[in-house]
């Protein structure tokens, strides 16, 4: 089963995402904090990371940069959740090598399609 790691500090958003993605047949684990999330990526080797841009501790952008700097995760697909009006952060994430963006508030069917797409299913 393909593994999706969701890094999101908003518990209710995480729960909703976990529900819809699990029903699509993905194995979903959730982390709510940046530092721990990096360790979890190294340990569990997910097939896709969904990353909130605004996180406590390490920001989503810093996590993305760390992932891209490590050869083991340099090619790992990363879907970033952003809010409207974060244009500058979005540009920075693009330069850092993000795979795709999803703008909050998002449509459930759109995010499911995007995940399917990124996992090559």
């Amino acid at each position, binding site marked *: 089963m393909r593994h999706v790691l969701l890094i999101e500090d908003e518990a209710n958003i995480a*729960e909703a995402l976990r529900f819809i993605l699990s029903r699509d047949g993905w194995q979903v684990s959730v982390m709510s904090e940046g530092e721990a999330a990096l360790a979890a990526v190294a340990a569990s080797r997910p097939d896709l990371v969904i990353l909130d841009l605004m996180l406590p501790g390490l920001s989503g952008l810093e996590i993305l940069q760390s992932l891209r700097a490590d050869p083991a995760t340099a090619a790992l697909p990363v879907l970033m959740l952003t809010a409207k009006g974060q244009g500058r952060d979005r540009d920075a994430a693009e330069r850092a090598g993000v795979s795709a963006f999803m703008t909050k508030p998002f449509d459930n069917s759109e995010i499911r399609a995007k995940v399917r797409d990124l996992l090559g299913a």
Partner: protein
Amino acid sequence: MPLSALTGTRLRERRIALGLRQADLAEQAGISASYLNLIEHNRRRIAEALLERLAQVLGQPVEAFQEGVAGALLDDLRAAAARLPGAELDRVEDFAGRFPGWAATLIGLHQRVVGLERALEAMNDRMSHDPHLSASLHELLSAVSSLRSTAAILADTDDIEPEWQARFLGNLQDDSKRLALGASALVHYLDNAGQEEDQALASPQEEVEAWLAAQDWAPGDPQALASSPARQMAQAWLAQAARDGAAMPAPDFAAALAEDGPDPVRLAARFGCDVLTAFRRIALHPAAEAGLVLCDASGTLTFRKPITGFALPRFGAACPLWPLFTALARPMTPIETLIETAGPQPQRFRIRAFCQPRFPAGFRGPELREAAMLILPEPRTTDPRGTEALAIGSTCRICQRDACPARREPSILAT
């Protein structure tokens, strides 16, 4: 009294109003018509004696033709002209003299524009950098994202297990409460922000200065001020004025000032207080004929009490040649300089400047500096114009000294 370039224009207008020809007026005044023509077009300076004759023929007192236009007014007009190219800068004096009402309107509009620009900038800053606003919006957005996703799950999932359904309904409940609270907090915040809109038109410092000027630099009621930052600054100012007054009590101070003259260092030694206290007491005592400028270590002007004939920049940085900045670089050293202002009618002032370092957090804290500059009119009798005076300006943008070695940007008056 130095004649303004406008004198010729005024003579011409009066002559035409009386229906006199140039040749008639020239003959009666005992000069050639061509010379009068040059005078009328402001191409020749006119001797006092000749002006008296012309004024007599034209049936008006000499003063009617002499009155120049204040330099500060011209500077304001030049600053306004700098906004959009195309104004006839070489005829600014002509314009101000002929149309004083229009000139005042133009200056007023210019100042209004500058104020609005500042308000806009402040609001822009607020929108993009206000941590409270951005946190509120993030909170709302998170709640909306969660609501939307959760509601869609409940609506679209036909075979949802009862325990999941209950859980998502609970989340909906939580998120809708959070959204309601967040929205009302945001509305409250924006409501309050709207009330400050007008206050941003003048900086708090300008507000305080205008308030002090209106009461002739004496303590007043800070509640009269519109914005709360200005009220806070005024409170701090009043507290300092009270300390200054206690350090140099009124009757003794007046007597000492009469005896020693406006010498802040001597007066401070006499009262055993710090030198900047003496600067403030001298410049702000009732009916004092002195300007005062204060700045901090960055050179930012923190206080301005103007004096006629010495233009203080309203915006932007001041002339780098001001003795204020000489003092800033040489703390605890009295700096006295005779200066001459720029412009067609240069005026002389005696400047006394002093910089006082402070260490409010002790040996391990930062050094703060405050410099003061007292601007004293230099009476003509003691100033035979033979002595060398330092040529200074107000601010580069509207300064007429093209060849100034301290210039940091081209003047809008350069041709």
